[in-house]
């Protein structure tokens, strides 16, 4: 890090010029007790909720409990430097983080301090935003209409996510929850070529709370390798950090995303994961002696998540006219919270809370994952309550029959296990289902553009693959997409621009391609 003498000189100049000026009366208090990362402070008469406090030795704290004769606060830093009897000063500032383009490509902690060793952020005092902000009101929003393409066939086809939606990703450990998020980030590169200054580029914010540091390092490295860090911000509060940092990281990340949303940009923020965040919050609140409720979580653990997720929104086009805090209208903040379940128990306290807050959920199942269906999305119980309006028309048309075919397949599959004598109609449904399941399988880190998704789903639902062995579907898919993109590059455009279903002439091209590629495979 290079220190610039000119900057230091200008600060000194200001200091000298204002030296003789009147000092302000500051509110102070005395530390009554300190331990486990929380302190109780006597005094601090006009302390505000969430105000930053200054302890001796440069340690900072946040006031969370304002009581009759003392203030309970969490320490954000080395608590061993704070002693009983120390003088605490109030700062008059609500806890804030730097926001804006300077953060893109960076890894920061819950206070916005860089963690990646790439030097200072270069964000100014104007870029500071309080981490707790009210969510946009009813009139400042508009319905979700644009798709957020995750690049994952199973999701974009059956559980579509719209920009401004909140879609929960839920599943046991090791079911591919984080992998799904990374694929989504990689897929956003297609929106603006990975250029963060491009207005169409979707900004991605990944908030890691209570994760292993090695996991965070892996994710950052993967994003860098694939050129996805240029439009991403990683907020990390790993398992090693103080519980207070872990629970504040979600709000800090949200404040960073809101800055872009309010400037008319599109943002997707991923909270990985809210269960660990609730655990961190529980720890802090129990130490502050707030009364415990169910599973020892404090009473406001629902509000902890609802006020966070409520900040995801699709802003109205005329939002700046209604409220001057918005610099531009039409921006969106999509939230993809993750909740880890224990032994598939989605009826536990935190999962049911977050399920009820969000606009749908994607269930990932350990059974599916282990039987090789990856991504392990359980299409039967996963839903998206608003995303349907956000699908491109040809996808909507084709995915409808996909959902139906798969539902029938699942029903018959259980039934077919009992007997071998099946009528031909049932046999046909089973054959179709097996191939559709194969189509929806997808490797990690290979997001599929939406037009290609429509092509292969059309091939499956039109029955073109029924005479191909299920084990060769993946092979077919690759050859088919290659063939179409090479011989008929106009197909992708025709699909993306279609106002309703795939145009008939394009369908003819696809049918012909299916036959040709299949013939080539069966011959060879």
């Amino acid at each position, binding site marked *: 890090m290079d220190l610039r003498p000119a900057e230091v000189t200008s600060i000194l100049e200001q200091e000298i010029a204002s030296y003789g000026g009147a000092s302000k009366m*500051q509110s102070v208090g005395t530390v009554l007790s300190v331990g486990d990362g929380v302190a109780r402070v006597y005094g601090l008469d006009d302390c505000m909720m969430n105000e930053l406090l200054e302890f001796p030795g440069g340690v900072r704290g946040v006031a969370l409990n304002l009581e009759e004769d003392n203030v309970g606060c969490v320490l954000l830093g080395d608590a061993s430097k704070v002693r009983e009897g120390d003088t605490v000063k109030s700062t008059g500032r609500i806890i804030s983080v730097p926001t804006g383009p300077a953060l893109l490509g960076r890894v920061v902690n819950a206070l916005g301090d860089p963690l990646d060793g790439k030097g200072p952020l270069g964000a100014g005092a104007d870029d500071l935003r309080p981490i707790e902000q009210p969510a946009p009101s009813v009139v400042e929003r508009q319905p979700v209409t644009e798709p957020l393409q995750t690049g994952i066939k199973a999701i974009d086809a059956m559980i579509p996510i719209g920009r401004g939606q909140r879609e929960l990703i839920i599943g046991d450990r090791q079911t591919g929850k984080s992998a799904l998020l990374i694929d989504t980030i990689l897929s956003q590169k297609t929106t603006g070529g990975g250029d963060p200054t491009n207005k169409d580029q979707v900004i991605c914010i990944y908030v890691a709370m209570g994760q292993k540091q090695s996991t965070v390092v892996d994710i950052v490295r993967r994003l860098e390798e694939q050129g996805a860090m240029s439009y991403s911000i990683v907020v990390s509060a790993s398992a090693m950090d103080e519980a207070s940092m872990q629970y504040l990281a979600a709000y800090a990340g949200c404040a960073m995303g809101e800055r872009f949303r309010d400037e008319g940009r599109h943002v997707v923020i991923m909270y990985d994961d809210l269960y660990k965040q609730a655990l961190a919050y529980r720890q802090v609140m129990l130490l502050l002696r707030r009364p415990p409720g169910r599973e020892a979580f404090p009473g406001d653990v629902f509000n902890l998540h609802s006020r966070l997720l409520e900040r995801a929104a699709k802003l109205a086009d005329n939002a700046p006219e209604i409220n001057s805090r918005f610099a531009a209208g039409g921006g969106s903040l999509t939230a993809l919270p993750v909740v880890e379940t224990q032994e598939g128990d989605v009826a536990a306290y935190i999962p049911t809370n977050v399920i009820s807050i969000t606009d749908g959920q994607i269930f990932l199942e350990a059974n599916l994952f282990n039987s090789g269906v990856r991504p392990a999305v359980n299409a039967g119980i996963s839903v998206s309550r608003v995303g349907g309006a956000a699908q491109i028309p040809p996808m909507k048309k084709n995915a409808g029959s996909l959902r139906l075919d798969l539902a029938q397949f699942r029903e018959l599959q259980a039934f077919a296990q009992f007997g071998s004598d099946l009528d031909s109609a049932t046999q046909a449904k089973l054959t179709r289902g097996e191939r559709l399941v194969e189509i929806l399988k997808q490797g990690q880190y290979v997001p599929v553009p939406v037009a290609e998704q429509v092509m292969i789903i059309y091939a499956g639902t039109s029955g073109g693959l029924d005479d191909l062995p299920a084990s060769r579907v993946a092979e077919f898919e690759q050859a088919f997409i290659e063939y179409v993109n090479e011989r008929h590059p106009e197909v992708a455009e025709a699909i993306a621009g279609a106002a309703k279903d795939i145009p008939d002439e394009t369908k003819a091209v696809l049918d012909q391609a299916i036959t040709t590629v299949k013939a080539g495979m069966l011959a060879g």
Partner: protein
Amino acid sequence: MIVDPVSTRYAGALFGLAQRTGVLDAVGRDVEQLGLQMASPGVRDFLCGSQASLAERRAGLDKLSADYHALTKNLLSLLLDKRREAVLVGLPDAFAQRRLQEQGAVEGEVAAARPLDAADLDALAASLGKLLGKQVLLKSRLAPDLLAGVQVTVDNRMLDTSVRGRLEGLRRKLLDAPLPASGA
């Protein structure tokens, strides 16, 4: 002065009663005396600890308050009955604060790098009094580590004009200064 809310309530009750019956000075002296006695760890541990039985503690308290006014004695017995021995420690401070409040005054402390003379202290108290709208009673304390200037603490508010405070402020500003990103 850290005063807990329970002591404040008991002190308020005692003060009001004493004021109405016109024995404020006598009760005030008693409470001051109590403060001096409670300052001894032996007395404090005996009365507030759990080693002595209630009867022993009551006898001890009676002996200690033999020449107190009847009102003060009543309060001490009440505290023991209600198991509020901790208030015995907090009461003198709480009572003193209540008396100051009645007079429209606040206590404060001045920490200075060099000894302050009476004129300086009076001038400081007068200007602070104008600022806060209350009479300010200042105690002075010598704190050479401030280097120069004074640090006044009144009523949970601090006015820091010391050189050390300013140096710390400068240090913080330098650390927080938005430096340009490297390579920019």
